[in-house]
């Protein structure tokens, strides 16, 4: 589904991602862990198409298409979704009409019929239950005045409505208490299907107790330095990241 080859990217001439390689297949959950500053969020933003980051090398194939050549909106329409680490507050833009516009753009691109207001509200009702989200939030402006937890839940709610092929969760656990974490993780788990995939980016192992990954990668200094099963996350929790630094230094391409 996703194939990243030798990806190099940076911001204002400073390299952040350096020859990063990653393959994600349909039906899989991958976790990317790593210390602060290792390039985790950069990877998420580059995949979503943020123009602040400059791609200096490598390629990314998304279901066979050249992802890096696509505009952000076309990536979303093709089924890529980024749950933001810091969702933006957008005063004056109603949550419901925004999401309806977004869903219908995605449906149009996929050759599906657009939903009318009644159909859309029925869908919203179903999905808010999944995330235990207060429907009143959706009559407000996008993320405006939402608590940290509500913002994160709203991201996963949007994901539930848009039904992406590949979801990237960027530090979705940060700022969540344990109850909210369980709800968010429960939502993500219910959305798992054999034909979609999830990339969970996180600093801590905690979230992975609830969203159990098939494969865990460690990202350090802009490249994947180690890949393993879910037990690798536990090992990192116990030993920290320092022991991997040597590996990062000695292996150009792990």
């Amino acid at each position, binding site marked *: 589904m996703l194939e990243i080859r030798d990806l190099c990217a940076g911001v204002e001439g400073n390299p952040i991602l350096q020859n990063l390689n990653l393959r994600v297949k349909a039906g899989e959950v991958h976790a990317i862990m790593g210390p602060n500053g290792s390039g985790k969020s950069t990877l998420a933003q580059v995949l*979503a*198409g*943020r*123009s*602040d980051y400059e791609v200096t090398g490598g390629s990314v194939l998304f279901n066979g298409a050249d992802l890096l050549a696509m*505009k*952000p*909106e076309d*990536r*979303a*329409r093709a089924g890529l*979704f*980024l749950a*933001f680490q810091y*969702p*933006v507050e*957008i*005063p*004056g*833009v109603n949550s419901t009409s*925004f*999401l309806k*516009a*977004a*869903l219908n*753009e*995605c449906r149009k*691109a996929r050759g599906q019929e657009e939903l009318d207001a009644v159909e859309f509200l029925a869908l919203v009702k179903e999905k808010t239950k999944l995330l235990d989200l207060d429907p009143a939030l959706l009559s407000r*402006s*996008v993320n405006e005045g939402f608590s940290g937890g509500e913002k994160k839940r709203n991201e996963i709610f*949007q994901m539930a409505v*848009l039904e992406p092929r590949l979801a990237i969760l960027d530090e979705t656990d940060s700022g969540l208490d344990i109850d909210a974490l369980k709800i968010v993780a429960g939502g993500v788990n219910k959305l798992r299907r054999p034909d979609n995939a999830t990339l969970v980016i996180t600093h801590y192992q905690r979230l992975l107790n609830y969203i159990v990954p098939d494969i865990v990668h460690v990202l350090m200094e802009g490249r994947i330095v180690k890949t393993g099963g879910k037990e690798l996350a536990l090992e990192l929790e116990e030993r920290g990241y320092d022991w991997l630094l040597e590996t990062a230094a000695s292996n150009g391409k792990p």
Partner: protein
Amino acid sequence: MIDTLNQPKAGPAPERAGVAPADSDQQRVQIVLDSFARADSSAFPPWLRTLRGAARARAGRMGFPTTRQEEWRFTNMAPVLQLPLHPAEKTGPALTRQDIARFAFGLDAHRLVFVDGHFCADLCSLPEEGNGLQLGNLLGQLAGDCPDVEQNLARHAPSDANFFTALNTAFFRDGAFVSIAAGKTAAKPVHLLFIGASEQAGATALSRNLILAQRGARLKVIESHVSLSDAARVTNTVTELVLGPGADVEHCKVQQESGRAFHIAAIQAVQAADSRWISHSIATGSRLARNQIQTLLNAGGAAAILNGLYLGDAEQLIDHHTVVDHARAHCESHEFYHGILAGRAHGVFNGKIFVRQDAQKTNAKQTNRNLLLSDNAVIDTKPQLEIFADDVKCTHGAAIGQLSDEAVFYLRSRGIGAEQARRILIQAFASDVIERIGIEPVRAGLEQMLAERFAPA
């Protein structure tokens, strides 16, 4: 989303009092005043004739404003003086209700209609008598015994400081009179509709409105200005509002005149104890618009809310000068203006707040934010706080900027195209003001106007 405000560059020093304008301008002004005087009716009661004569003399002394004066520094009125200014006459065939339906916001309202400043009784919808709401044209009032009018008309709007207000007082033709009795709530909003129809350049409609809300009365007024002609007409309108103790008045001015029109408006409210005045100024039309919106908070507990939205494009100049005068203690004011400027449009916002020595415990807040959509659009924004009391809370903020890249990206990351994302955000910035209007059909009509204005080309 917005860069910090750069203080406007220092301009030429304001003109000193007593220095007369250049001869040619002075002569031009005299010619204009004489032409208005020749057309003027003498049918007014003596007290008003006295006021008018004094105002005419003042207008003559003041002369036409120039950019050398601080109040007019950013707004050059010279193009108005170049027009063959004359009082607009009744022209063309009479309008029908069908002709004006599109200006009605689909609103079930009491309505007064003026065409080029002349009252059109046929097009009006008046309330039944006996419910405390009095509505009619000012000339009608002046023809009878009218102590309320005599006590208030031209007593509040300062014509000693503003040439156009003086001109209006000296020569207004007619206007709206709205009065609501103590303790009454108007069942429907009042719509004052001003239509510019003259095809003659320089045709000037001078209208004068008086709105009185007695103790505890509640009233909503829409004052809208539209054009049926594309001529370089001039609107000069003055509205005085007097709010008794505990009165609650919402006044929504919507200016959508055509692109060659000149629009000059002054609004002066005077507020008694515990009264609340909500003013909205939505300005999207005309080549040049100047709005002078002022309130005097004259007793404790009075509150004023001043909202505004100006949308400028092409070569438009839209100027708002607001004055909130905190004369007494325990009053509050909230001012919230947004501007969106494209093309080579020029916006001006000048927000004056006076806090007089007696006005302890004042709470005043002012916000002016501007979105510049092109490199050639210009905004001059200037908060001006003069505070003479020490126990007060006053805040102000002015900001100028472009659309937030972060917000555009967020919308795009959900599948919304770049252009649509920009439109959604621009419209949201405007809606932030529109949604404060408490008259639902007007709000809906303006949202629709925004959607059309920012629709894909």
